[in-house]
C-alpha cells in the first residue's frame, strides 16, 4: 500500500511553487498568449468587422476639424454616411503619396456602381505648405474625386493623433524639407468606425476586392 502511494506521488505533477511547476506554468501561459495573438491576427485578417475588429474600431479615428480644398470646414461627422478611404500625406511627396492616391483611383474605378459609396480622403501632414488651393490642384490630377483636407498645425496634429499617424519634418540642404509619415490607407465604415487598412504593398485589385466584400 505504501509502495503504491509512493509510485502515485512520483507520477503526480510537482507541487505548486516548485521550479518545475513554475516553468511548466510559464510555458503554458506563453502558449495561451501566443494563441490569443494568432487568433486575433486571423480574426482581423478574415473578419475585420468581427469581435477583434471592434476592439480596434475605437482605437483608430476620432474627432477632427479641418478645411477642404474649397475652403469649407469639414469634421469627422461629415464623413459619415459613406465609406471613407483615408490617407495622410503631403503634396511635395514625389513617390509614396501619388502612388497611394493612384492606387485608390484604380481601385475605385473597379467598383462599378459601388464607387459612389466610397469617399477617398487625403489629409496633409504638411499644413505649412499645403494650402486648400495647392491641395485642390493636386487632387484634381487623380481620376477619383478626392476630398483633400488641411488646417492649422494643431488641427492637423489632432486628426493625425486620432488615426495614430506619425509625421515629422526632415530638414534637407537649402532650407527644403521632406516629411516622414505613416503611409497607410484606412478604411472607415459609414458610421466612422475603423474597418480595415492597406499599405503600399496592397495592389489596387486587392483594395477593390476587399471593398466590394465590405460594402456588400
Amino acid at each position, binding site marked *: 500500500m505504501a509502495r503504491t502511494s509512493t509510485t502515485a506521488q512520483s507520477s503526480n505533477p510537482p507541487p505548486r511553487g516548485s521550479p518545475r511547476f513554475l516553468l511548466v506554468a510559464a510555458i503554458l501561459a506563453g502558449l495561451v498568449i501566443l494563441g490569443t495573438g494568432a487568433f486575433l491576427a486571423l480574426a482581423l485578417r478574415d473578419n475585420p468587422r468581427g469581435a477583434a475588429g471592434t476592439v480596434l474600431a475605437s482605437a483608430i479615428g476620432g474627432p477632427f476639424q479641418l478645411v477642404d480644398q474649397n475652403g469649407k470646414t469639414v469634421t469627422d461627422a461629415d464623413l459619415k454616411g459613406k465609406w471613407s478611404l483615408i490617407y495622410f500625406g503631403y503634396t511635395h511627396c*514625389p*513617390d509614396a503619396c501619388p*502612388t497611394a492616391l493612384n*492606387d485608390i483611383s484604380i481601385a475605385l474605378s473597379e467598383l462599378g456602381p459601388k464607387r459612389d459609396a466610397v469617399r477617398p480622403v487625403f489629409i496633409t501632414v504638411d499644413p505649412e505648405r499645403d494650402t486648400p488651393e495647392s491641395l485642390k490642384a493636386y*487632387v484634381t490630377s487623380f481620376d477619383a474625386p478626392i476630398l483633400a483636407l488641411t488646417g492649422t498645425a494643431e488641427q492637423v496634429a489632432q486628426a493625425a493623433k486620432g488615426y495614430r499617424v506619425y509625421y515629422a519634418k526632415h530638414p*534637407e540642404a537649402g532650407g527644403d524639407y521632406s516629411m516622414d509619415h*505613416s503611409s497607410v490607407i484606412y478604411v472607415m465604415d459609414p458610421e466612422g468606425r475603423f474597418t480595415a487598412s492597406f499599405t*503600399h504593398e496592397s495592389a489596387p485589385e486587392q483594395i477593390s476586392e476587399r471593398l466590394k466584400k465590405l460594402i456588400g
Partner: protein
Amino acid sequence: MFIKILAFAAGLVVASAALAQPTQLEVNNTWAGATPGKAENGAAYVTITSPTADRLVSASSPVAKKAELHSMSMQGMVMKMRPITGLDIPAGQPVTLKPGGEHIMLMGLNQPLHEGQSFPLTLDFEKAGPRTVTVTVEKAGARGPGPAAAKH
C-alpha cells in the same frame, strides 16, 4: 548564297550575345510620374545595367532646379525619404529604381510634368561618365513604366 546565310546566322549569334551581355553601361526603362497640380517635386526612375561595377553619383535635368538621388524606406508603417550620396551598380546585375525604393528626385520643377511628355535626364557615373537619356512621363502615381518608356 550559302556563305551569305552563314554570315547572316553568325551575325545573329553575335547580336544576341551582345543583347544578353551589354558591352557598356546601359540605362533603360526611363520614366517619371506626372506631377499632380502644382507639385514642385517629381521622381524619375531608370534601370541601369553595367558589365563592370560602377556607381551612379549624380543626376541633372533641365526641367528642374536640381536632381538628387533619394532612397525611400519603410520603418514600420512610416515612409522615410533620404538623399543618398550614390548608388552602387554591381557588374552584370540590373539595378532598377522604382516607387518605394530609390528614385531620382526632381526638385523645383520649372513646369509640372504631364503624362505623355518626355524630357532629358543626365546621369553621372563614376566610371562610365555622363549618360543622357529621354524620360517618358507616365500617369501620376504609376507603379511602373508604360510601353513607350520600355522601348527606350
